[in-house]
C-alpha cells in the first residue's frame, strides 16, 4: 500500500465520519450541539494548521541566532566570485 493510498484512505475515513455527523446520514439524532461543532470542522482544522504554521515561523524568526563565521565566509566568497567574473570580462 503506497503512502498516497494510505493518506487517501485515512482522509476518506475521517471525511466519512464528518459527513455522517454533519448531514445526519444515519439518522442518529445526535444532540444539536454536536452537529453545530462538527460542520465547520474542515475549515477549523485548516485555520488551526495556519495558526500553528504562523506561530512556528514567528518563533523561529525570533530565536534565530546570528552566524558570524558563516556571514564572513559568505562575504569572502562573494568578493572572490566578483573578482573572478571581473577577470573573465563580465562588467558588473
Amino acid at each position: 500500500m503506497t503512502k498516497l493510498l494510505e493518506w487517501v484512505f485515512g482522509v476518506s475515513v475521517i471525511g466519512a465520519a464528518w459527513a455522517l455527523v454533519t448531514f445526519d446520514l444515519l439518522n442518529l439524532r445526535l444532540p444539536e450541539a454536536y452537529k453545530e461543532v462538527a460542520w465547520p470542522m474542515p475549515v477549523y482544522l485548516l485555520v488551526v494548521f495556519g495558526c500553528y504554521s504562523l506561530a512556528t515561523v514567528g518563533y523561529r524568526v525570533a530565536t534565530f541566532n546570528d552566524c558570524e563565521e558563516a556571514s564572513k565566509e559568505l562575504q569572502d566568497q562573494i568578493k572572490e566570485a566578483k573578482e573572478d567574473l571581473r577577470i573573465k570580462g563580465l562588467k558588473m
Partner: protein
Amino acid sequence: MATGEDQAVGMGLVGFSLLLFTYYTIWVIILPFVDSDHVVHQYFLQREYSVILPGIAALILLLSVGTFIGVVTWKNRKPKKVD
C-alpha cells in the same frame, strides 16, 4: 541572538496566532455548549461567519499570490527569447 526587530516581529506573529487560535476555538468548539442567553455570545458573530470569513481570507490570499506571480511574470517577459 536575533536582533531586536526580528524578535519583536517573531513574537508578534506568535502572539497574533495565539489570539486567533483562542478566539476561533471558542467560537467553533466552545460556544455551541454555552446557553444561548449567556453574555459571551454577544462577542461572536453568527456561526455561518466562522466558515465564510476564513473562506474569504483564503480567496484574498490566493488572489494576492496569483496577482503577484502574474505581475512578476509580465515584467520579465522578453520578446523573442525566453530564459
